């Protein structure tokens, strides 16, 4: 029978299947961070259980770490306890940890691929919804809760039910200045934040194949914002080249064996999907979010919606609530939205290509005098690479702050946060109420758009700055 890529990975990891469809799935790779793991390790300790495969588990502290000078440690007492607890737990249970002073430290979804821990055809989980990022490598990767983290630590398996197959085909070519961030924002705008609920999305089409590995990660990363369990892309030569020689990638004879297997990882041509969506890349424009849900997208040429033109009562209320929170007036032009802060970073857009894209716009320019802007590289290795390329100097010369790696203002668990009513152009993934700080207002954009907004002082069209 013809099968999809998701079907193949699923079938290849079935340890057991009950008559009611409940399955026990083997987990090849488990990423752990400090926020969603303490209660799981505590659970193991209370029941005298061990980590079944410490060598299939990799831990890093990313949510709570300061992005300023780290020589003084973490000043927030609770953040420090959580990071220290991860350290203690990893030592006790024999799990490899990249500590705060390790240059390999960074956002969990950036270090996995960087180390070659992330591999095609694997099942990868993490107590973090943006685990979908790793699907860019043709793995089945998804976020889990803390009880499930404990389950995976104890059994190296997970209780799951099969999701539906949903394929999104993107064909054509992106216009200049339009990026994979705009593609995924466009997709979420079309399907809505619950559009993918109960499904695994496979991204396909010639545009997707033309994207670099890092651009693919941006798309898969925000799959969860469309409600889907996971998002994945069939692996190809770009993926194999990316992984070759990475510290945790297969070596020697194993590399050849792995490559043979990885080459089989694709959806059969006549496989059927429960749902399909086709998009034309040529029609995608630079996107922004105006509201408090990632589905609240418009193009930079558009106006903010007017609740009065909405007939559905729920939608109307929801628009009114969002406009009120965001401090925006109906029908105002996107380009008239004045910003206070710019954040470039996160597991969505904190990789080297993202920093290059923003730096290209910022070169020899100054950011607006009323804007406070920062770049938080996704990992110590991204930071090092950027510094070798001189990107840090471009950012600093333009007026940006150049920070240490971590999740930072994507969710504002550390000291980096918005004040009430402050408005931010952010390359992160969520514009929920209070996400970047209580009362803070977030507009999700691509790295190039964030750079353009920093220069203009208002949301602006990145295409203006393309040479």
């Amino acid at each position, binding site marked *: 029978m013809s099968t999809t890529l998701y079907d193949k990975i699923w079938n290849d990891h079935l*340890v*057991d299947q009950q008559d*009611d469809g409940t399955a*026990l799935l*083997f987990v*090849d790779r488990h990423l752990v961070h400090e926020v*969603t793991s*303490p*209660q799981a390790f*505590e*659970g193991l300790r209370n*029941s005298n*259980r061990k980590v079944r*495969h410490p*060598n*299939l588990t990799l831990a890093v502290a990313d*949510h*709570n770490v300061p992005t300023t000078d780290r020589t003084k440690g973490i000043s927030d007492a*609770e*953040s420090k*306890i959580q990071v220290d607890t991860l350290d203690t737990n990893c030592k006790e249970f024999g799990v490899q940890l990249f500590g705060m002073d390790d240059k390999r430290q960074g956002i969990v979804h950036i270090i996995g691929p960087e180390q070659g821990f992330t*591999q095609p055809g*694997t099942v990868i989980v993490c*107590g973090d*919804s943006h685990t979908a990022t790793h699907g860019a490598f043709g793995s089945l990767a998804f*976020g*889990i*809760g803390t*009880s*499930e983290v*404990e*389950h995976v630590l*104890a*059994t*190296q*398996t997970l*209780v799951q039910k099969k999701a539906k197959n949903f394929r999104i085909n993107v064909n054509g070519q992106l216009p200049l200045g339009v990026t994979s961030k705009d593609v995924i924002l466009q997709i979420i705008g079309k399907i809505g*934040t*619950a559009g993918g*609920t109960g499904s695994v999305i496979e991204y396909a089409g010639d545009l997707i194949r033309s994207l670099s590995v890092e651009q693919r990660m941006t798309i898969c990363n925000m799959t969860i914002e469309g*409600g889907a369990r996971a998002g994945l892309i069939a692996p190809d030569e770009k993926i194999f080249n990316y992984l070759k020689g990475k510290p945790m990638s*297969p070596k020697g004879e*194993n590399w050849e*064996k*792995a490559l043979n*297997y990885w080459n089989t990882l694709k959806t059969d041509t006549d496989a059927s999907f429960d749902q399909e969506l086709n998009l034309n890349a040529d029609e995608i424009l630079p996107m922004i979010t105006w509201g408090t*849900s990632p589905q609240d997208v418009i193009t930079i040429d558009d106006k903010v919606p007017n609740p009065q033109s909405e007939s559905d009562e*729920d939608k109307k*209320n*929801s628009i009114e*609530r969002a406009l009120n929170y965001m401090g925006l007036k109906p029908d105002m032009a996107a380009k008239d939205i004045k910003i206070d802060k710019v954040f470039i970073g996160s597991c969505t857009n904190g990789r080297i290509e993202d920093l290059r894209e923003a730096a290209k716009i910022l070169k020899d320019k100054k950011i607006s005098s009323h804007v406070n802007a920062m770049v938080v590289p996704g990992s110590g290795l991204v930071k090092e690479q950027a510094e070798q390329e001189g990107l840090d100097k471009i950012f600093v010369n333009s007026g940006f702050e150049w920070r240490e790696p971590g999740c930072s203002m994507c*969710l*504002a*668990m550390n000291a980096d946060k918005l004040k009430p009513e402050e408005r931010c152009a952010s390359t992160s993934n*969520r514009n*929920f*109420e*209070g*996400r970047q700080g*209580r009362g803070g207002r977030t507009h999700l954009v691509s790295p190039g758009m964030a750079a353009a907004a920093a220069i203009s002082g208002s949301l602006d069209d990145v295409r203006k700055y393309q040479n």
Partner: protein
Amino acid sequence: MQKFNTLKSIPAYLPIVNIDTDMIIPKQFLKTIKRTGLGKNLFFEMRYDDQGNEISNFVLNQNPYDSSKILIAGKNFGCGSSREHAPWALLDFGITCVISSSYADIFYSNCFKNGILPIILEEEKIKELSEYASRKEEISVDLNDEKIVYGNNEIKFDVDPFKKKCLLEGLDDIALSLKKSDKIESFETDLKNKKPWIFND
């Protein structure tokens, strides 16, 4: 895990769609290393003002909803972050049943791991039940019979049979899976032969 069987309570109604887990429990409370104590911070930003005083028109700050065990909410409840702190906060507040027309996948699954029953009903039925909330009348939930009884009416709901069994009996997922250790072991042996690079040893 606490068993779930039947439940009777005046429901609280929160008529907002796409309630995300950041709204249910904001990030500053994720720094805990415990599962308990989050109830007072449930829906923190809607519940308290900048000075930390209760916002009186927020439903969970009003009597009798401040002791509701059932929460009725708009569609796509629990979207966003995977934080299990969201169901922990609901549970700690005393809410053990949520009723909505749809849920985000991870939140839905997290509920069952914590003895919380998330019920899916059609929008119309949600509106009907919400009237019981505004009239401050009790409704009853019966998991075994998969029904909600309100006034002289009842609504049937569906729940996955395995998840239902686990909730009714308060079963520990890990213990159940470890009963399949022989299957896990034979899978691993097979994996080492077929894909030696996975274990990298």
